[in-house]
């Protein structure tokens, strides 16, 4: 048997406490992360079945003109979003942000019920009319570049 001095015993206890604290913190962090990180998908990805159904995700796109419908004077609304290529329909119940309009960019969180329909829990408000959500801007730019290439 190795005899431990008082200081080394103390040190071992300290190290144990430190490891315990560190591992419980990491576990907490990983748990919180895995539960709450939300992936972003484009309509094209959804139509191509790259997005999971019935999972909490973010989607974005442009609101298609003349697609906005309100169900007989209630808070239930539906509209179509597109990324110049594919489009999917969105259902939402609640108040829309001030700057929501047809032809504008929009980002939402919610679930897919199938590969054509998205049920939004939250439609994100943006601050000014010139502003495009970065995710949508990025996505639209890629699509436009692709189109230009095809035209050539």
């Amino acid at each position, binding site marked *: 048997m190795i005899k431990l001095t008082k200081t080394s015993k103390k040190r071992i206890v300290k190290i144990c406490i430190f490891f315990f604290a560190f591992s419980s913190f990491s576990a907490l962090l990983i748990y919180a*992360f895995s539960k*709450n990180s939300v992936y972003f998908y484009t309509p094209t990805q959804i139509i191509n079945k790259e997005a999971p159904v019935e999972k909490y995700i973010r989607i974005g796109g442009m609101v298609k003109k003349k697609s906005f419908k309100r169900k007989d004077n209630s808070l239930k609304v539906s509209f179509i979003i597109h990324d110049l290529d594919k489009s999917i329909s969105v259902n939402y119940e*609640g108040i829309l942000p001030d700057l929501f309009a047809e032809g504008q960019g929009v980002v939402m969180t919610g679930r897919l019920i199938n590969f054509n329909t998205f049920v939004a829990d939250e439609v994100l408000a943006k601050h000014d009319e010139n502003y495009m*959500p970065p995710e949508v801007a990025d996505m639209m730019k890629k699509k436009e570049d692709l189109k230009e290439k095809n035209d050539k």
Partner: protein
Amino acid sequence: MINEIGNIFLSISATLSLCMFAVIFFKKSLATNIRFTFCKYFSISISILITLSFLILAYAFLTDDFSLRYVANNSNIDLENVYKFSAVWGAHEGSILLWVLVMSIWCSLIILLSKNMPKTIIIDMISVMGLLLLFFLVFILFSSNPFDRVFPVPLNGRDLNPLLQDPGLIIHPPMLYIGYVGTSVPFVFAISVLINGSIKLEWIAWLRKWVIASWMFLTIGISLGSWWAYHELGWGGWWFWDPVENASFMPWLAITALLHSLIVSEKRGIFINWSILLSILTFSLSLLGTFLVRSGILVSVHAFANDPERGLYILLFLTLIIGSSLTLYFLKSNILIFHKQYSVSSKEFALLLNNLFLTITTFAILLGTLYPLISSSLDLGKISVGAPYFNFIFSALMLPIVFLMSPAIYSSWKKTNYKSLTKKLVFVLFYSLILTYIILNIFFETDVFVVFLAMFLAIFTIFSSLLKIYQVSKTNKGMIIKKILNIPSSSFSNLFSHIGIGILIIGITISNYYSVQKEIIMQKNSEIIIKNISIKFVGVQNKLSKNYSSQVGIFDAYSDNNYFVSFFPEKRTYNIQKNIMTEAAIDSSLFRDIYVALGENVSEDSWVVRIYYKPYIQFLWYGVGLMILGGLFGIFGRRKIEKKLANAI
């Protein structure tokens, strides 16, 4: 012409900052007094010059000088004068100018209020400050100059972002910036101490005042931002864990940790190394915050200017500052270690845990804020980390911190008598539990565990703080009033801030869990009942203002059939930018807010309406008020003690 003068002033200040930085290299060839005088005049002239150029820019705004691109983009003839003035810091260029203005003033204040400090330390602090100023001034002059011209000169400006046309936004940015920039004081102190290789406890006492001041301004700034969001965004929320909010919250957590570790360093001469490291980290987080806000690389509701080039400059600066100061720290910090014993039951240990948890919390928030960036730049998919992550991790890590407050209050330095500590704690714990149980059962009929836990912690903290005040005052002699007046201001400072935290927690918990929220379509003359209050929708009127037109809803509120107040929520359309803005109408009283916001017009007479009943939300602002009061005691109450110290030396 006058604008060119503003530009020239900025260039001169940049040159002077360079000279101020250069002073650090003349340690051997120039006498300390001469270097000190140099630093003094440099920093004061820089402050004056930057103030003047700031005023010139303000003058350009007030006189509608649209030949300046910055004015043309952010102002308008019809804008109210108050907002013309606040538009100076309404966008990128001006807010960086405000940043250097505040920094130069902090810099002058350091040198003017440094009587009891050794001059060598102050000189090095000021010189490093000169380098920081130089970086920002160069940044202004070359990539974001507010005095840039535009040609042809537009007849009218593009107006200030309507969202910023709110009283809360007039003082929110300056307060926040004073706090942000204030974190540079401990930073330059740390650098100076590392360069000089020595530290004394009196210096830490001096530094602590500056840290409290900057903590206070940061607190005011952040809470004003919350208050503004609550009033202006029309969602009834006051905190969204938006990256930009996190950017201001991380330095706050770090500086709160610093505040506590400095107490230990000052009183016991330990944790000095850690305090120095924390000073560097706090300022780095402030800079990181500026980078995140100004570069526009984050997905945020705060859609400010997006300019990658500017972001790159700040990022380079950030890496340089963090990299060099950390290198310096690792090379030199071993000189500063003091060895002293303390036991697990001591105040030192409680404050160590406080620092540990605050740092971990900061790290967790940093991770959640930056992870989406990292993942999208590494092509791991576009991820967003939402409010649930932050809520979960923040409350999980805050529980132990708040719980530790009371033991920390009752324990003493070095080693506490276990028996008396546990006796006191068990007593307070027992009564707080009973009190919480009674309050929750009478007023809220609840059995939600989280609510019970949070309320218990809040009451525990408040109760033990109050009891401590009573105990401290009991040892003083004389009448009751004299007893209270003789309480040392340091305990007042600590107790007020902790009671503030308790009240804040009550406000957050109750308003979160017991808010009643209705989102409905209301027809003209219809009524809705929310928490015994019936609210009648009278109608909507049009109103024309100078720079916007609005639709004003009229709602009358009745309690037991007695009319008591009317609400006038607005939906504004701003003339120039064509933005639609929701102005909520709020009726506040001590224990509740009623919040009415107007949504879309569905058909002729029916509107979407959002009504909230938010109990105890006012406690948020009271809590913050108490925390700031605590800060004031911390700064101004300490003069007496320092005088005594100075006399003794």
